[in-house]
């Protein structure tokens, strides 16, 4: 009998009060599970690759089957081949690149402006309690207003041209980016700031040599997340009224029931998004090498 088993003869040292307890039931050990179904377990390179291929191949296969079986009319769901042909056609005529460039330009201006405004404000909010008290109430309200609801107002104020589109992008991303940057900056450990003062750093030096470098990888991460939002907003802005851009191309194709073109543009939008993400990820890894 194990020394811990209840019911064993009480010795001088064991405390009374456990006499009536039966033995604690033991559950059988669970069998071994595959790493694929084990929480946080690393999986083999092979399984990772297979799953990644499947995640793209299965929807593609479903698409092919749906079209080939004729369940969905090709006017609604064009075949992959038709989409590719439409894409090549738009590329050859040059309209694809003109549209792409128009869209990219708007993102560069609108989101660039949002980053230029939100990063400094976010740093001020995360560094000074006064900055937080000043900006946070307003920004917390504004970020809940859907940017697309501003479109009519922006058109009234700025007309149908570029400014209203850039303003929509700006409104859609600036508030979130500010709050995310301020969170990152607030994450700089207090002891790191304190020790910098004891090494002789003044306020401005603490900001420049401690707070900003410590926050940089997190700021790039915030920009990466919000770049996806910017990419969404620009297409929404172009759906409303424009003469070029990927969003415009979608609306125009709709008028002529060119679903193959719509699909081709959607694929281009997705690929560009992935490209932006990869570039910002590389930048993040470069500035954040020290985070390991």
């Amino acid at each position, binding site marked *: 009998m194990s020394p811990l088993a209840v019911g064993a003869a009480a010795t001088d040292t064991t405390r009374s009060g456990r006499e009536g307890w039966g033995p604690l039931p033991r559950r059988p050990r669970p069998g071994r599970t595959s790493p694929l179904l084990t929480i946080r377990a690393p999986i083999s390179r092979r399984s990772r690759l297979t799953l990644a291929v499947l995640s793209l191949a299965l929807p593609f296969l479903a698409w092919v089957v749906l079209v080939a079986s004729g369940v969905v009319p090709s006017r609604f769901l064009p075949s992959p081949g038709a989409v590719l042909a439409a894409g090549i056609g738009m590329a050859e005529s040059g309209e694809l690149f003109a549209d792409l460039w128009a869209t990219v330009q708007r993102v560069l201006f609108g989101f660039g402006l949002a980053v230029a405004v939100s990063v400094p404000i976010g740093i001020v909010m995360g560094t000074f309690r006064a900055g937080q008290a000043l900006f946070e109430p307003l920004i917390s309200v504004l970020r809940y207003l859907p940017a697309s609801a501003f479109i009519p107002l922006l058109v009234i104020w700025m007309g149908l041209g570029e400014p209203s589109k850039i303003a929509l992008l700006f409104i859609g991303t600036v508030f979130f980016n500010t709050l995310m940057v301020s969170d990152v900056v607030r994450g700089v450990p207090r002891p790191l700031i304190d020790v*910098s*003062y*004891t*090494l*002789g750093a003044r306020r401005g030096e603490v900001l420049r*040599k401690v707070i900003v470098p410590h926050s940089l990888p997190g700021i790039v991460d915030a920009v990466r997340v919000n770049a996806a939002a910017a990419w969404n907003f620009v297409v929404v802005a172009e759906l409303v009224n424009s003469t070029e851009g990927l969003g415009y191309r979608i609306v125009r194709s709709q008028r002529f029931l060119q679903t193959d073109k719509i699909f081709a543009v959607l694929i281009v939008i997705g690929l560009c998004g992935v490209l932006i993400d990869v570039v910002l990820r590389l930048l993040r890894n470069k500035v954040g090498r020290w*985070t390991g």
Partner: protein
Amino acid sequence: MKLELSGVGKSFRTGAASVRALDGVDLRVASGEFLCVVGASGSGKSTLLSLVAGLDVPTEGRITLDGAEVTGPGPDRGLVPQAGTLYPWRTVERNVAFGLELLPITPEDRAARVDWHLAETGLTEFRHALPRQLSGGQQQRVAIARALACEPEVLLLDEPFGALDVQTKEDMQVLVRQVWRDTGTTVLMVTHDVEEAVFLGGRVVVLACDPGRVAADITVALPEDRDLDIKRHPDFLALRASIEDIVRAQHRAHTARATAGGR
């Protein structure tokens, strides 16, 4: 006197209640002295150090360094906290250079000073490593070298080896003792480890709890030239035991009060 605390008290407000961390602390640290402050948790010893560092302001009393009142943090009081205060994006040598980069000295001068302090703390071969690549003990070496490079009037050590394993801790104790003798700097160290305090200090001050007051001030009558073997010497053991008795009595009184007072 290098450093002088007279009648220093500190209260913290937490909601409606006010907690008294330190009360009427008088302390004098002579130039070149190695003073260790020991006390159980709740004795306000870390508060004491952050007041001397200028990171917090005493509620009453005065702290002076070379006769001038301490009003804020500065490089004349270099601080080594318990852990995790290196700049993670800077290499070892650039961590050590941080304080020097803020001063109008030539790059050659700065490099020479960094080299000396890296060699003094045994870090020369790790100079290009990032903090995350170092062990806990090596990280604390960098923190010590970084504070020393600013040539502080007083080096403040806030339980700097509290997070280290016993063997590393002893290496670090030998290192700090050697650094103290090599640089002649004044050291004020806070620790809960009485053995460490007796091994390192020329004097040991015991803080009482609730609120922190000076309960005992004991001169360590051991030879200046100490190695780890001295920790087994009867004189060392006797001194350690008598100080531990004081700390334990304080801790018991603190626990009893906490239970009775329902804090």
